[in-house]
């Protein structure tokens, strides 16, 4: 059975806000009428252990809600490579942080090695790396309408962090363009 099923993973370590970014994206997609299942794997240690937050997106009801073949992968820590790499579909979109995930295995993927955490640091807090990554994912995958993702970020953000999160999201939209212009990133499509 082939349905229009899209699978996304945001992988890294506990405390990076991976589940929050996945929830924001899931909310935005649900608001657009998609059926979404959002699951996660985490360690009892909570902070520092391997963690991933996954989405399965479909036009109809999602039968099996767990990822089995990834269309899109965001890597915010090298720990996430080993459990995620075997699930990648050929040609999948891979976005990895240059600093936290410096080396990637080879393969036939749309690879973007981007300074996500550095962009967050430049904005004032490494804590918004998850939102920068979300912006980059939306920009490179077109998975979601930008207006909806902005609404979802607003809905999930405490007032004191709203400006920072919106700046992070917008910086995320542009990070691949700037990186390519400044030769800051390895943008490797189809190798």
């Amino acid at each position: 059975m082939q349905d229009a099923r899209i699978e996304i993973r945001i992988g890294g370590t506990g405390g990076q806000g991976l589940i929050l970014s996945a929830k924001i994206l899931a909310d935005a997609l649900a608001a657009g009428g998609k059926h979404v299942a959002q699951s996660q794997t985490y360690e009892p240690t909570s902070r520092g252990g391997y963690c991933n937050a996954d989405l399965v997106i479909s036009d109809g009801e999602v039968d099996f809600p767990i990822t089995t073949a990834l269309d899109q992968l965001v890597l915010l820590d090298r720990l996430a490579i080993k459990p995620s790499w075997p699930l990648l579909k050929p040609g999948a979109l891979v976005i990895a942080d240059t600093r936290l995930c410096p080396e990637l295995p080879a393969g036939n993927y749309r690879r973007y090695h981007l300074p996500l955490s550095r962009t967050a640091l430049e904005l004032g807090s490494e804590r918004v790396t998850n939102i920068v990554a979300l912006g980059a994912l939306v920009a490179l995958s077109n998975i979601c309408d930008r207006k909806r993702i902005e609404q979802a970020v607003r809905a999930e953000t405490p007032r004191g962090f709203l400006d920072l999160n919106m700046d992070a999201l917008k910086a995320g939209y542009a990070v691949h363009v700037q990186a390519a212009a400044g030769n800051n990133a390895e943008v490797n499509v189809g190798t």
Partner: protein
Amino acid sequence: MNAIDTALTGKSAVKLISGNHACALGAIAAGCRFFAGYPITPSSEIAERLARRLPEVDGVFVQMEDEIASMAAVIGASMGGVKAMTATSGPGFSLKQENIGYAAGAEIPCVIVNVMRGGPSTGMPTRPSQADIMQARWGSHGDYPIIVLTPASVSEIYSETLRAFDLAEQCRSPVVLLYDQVIAQLSETVALDGAGHASATRKWASGPRAAYQPYDGGSDAIPAMARPGDGYRTHTTGLTHSESGFPTQQPEAVTRNLSRLFSKLERHRDLIDSSEALHCDDADVVIVAIGISARAATRAVEQCRAQGLRVGLFRPITFWPFPEKQLRQAAAKARAVLVPEMNTGQLRLVVERVLAGVAVEGLHLFSGEAITPSDIAARATALARGA
């Protein structure tokens, strides 16, 4: 219920929520007004939600000193006339067992949520399992009946939570809501429609006070409870008791009361039973599964059907009492039965007993990972092709 939750449970509202959140919403909608518990992964989100929501509906949330006391508090609240629940996981479910037996023996309506995580002992707090199937049925000492429901999706957690409270009240029984960590913490887009739900009410004592017997089963084997303040004289004990509620070891009285207790659920199977059969009518191979494994099996069945293979799925929604008749009917034409489950063979044991004579194969995974559709499809394909 606050505005957000009202919006969530409105007729056509579609929202992304987790299984544990759906359970908390279902409890409020069912009329639960007392929760006592002790937080434990991966069930804590239920307590977290109810801690905030219950006071808004004049309910009571208590974080007790441990799971034993939580279960005792739930029983006490229910005896006071309030719909009550607790939620736990892993070791917490073990701790509650003594008092679950008390609730079964004294016939106190209550709902116990057990989110199954990897075990034994502390095991894998953040990983799924389906290894408490037998504990949910036989976990307390002695012999007693109990109702166990096994939902498989976020929306079904909501509807089965409603049903759990209804069955607890109607049958005067503890009801265990049993689901795995995957669907507990999974968020899904769901439309929660509990609008037409009319909550069941308890059979309260009525009529002449002098004639009231707290454990007289009447015509339907379900004794009427004395509502505090109504003036009926009653007595509740964990000791074996006669119709009067007072302890007895007199063999005839013990046999009479326990026989009624055991017949109680059997006499109300029409109310209790719930199961689902998918493509079973002509199936050569029937898969039997619950929870997240049933979700994987659903996809596997569709994949097998696309290959022209006659594979079906039977899914118990009420797990205990086990839907034996329904399984026999679903597997009437089956040459082989496949049981995928996240344990070493608890459901398989049940299926082997119910379908004695049919070849039953287990697909057991206890690594803390969910079984995938492709694993199930591969085995079902081999069985359908006679391999």
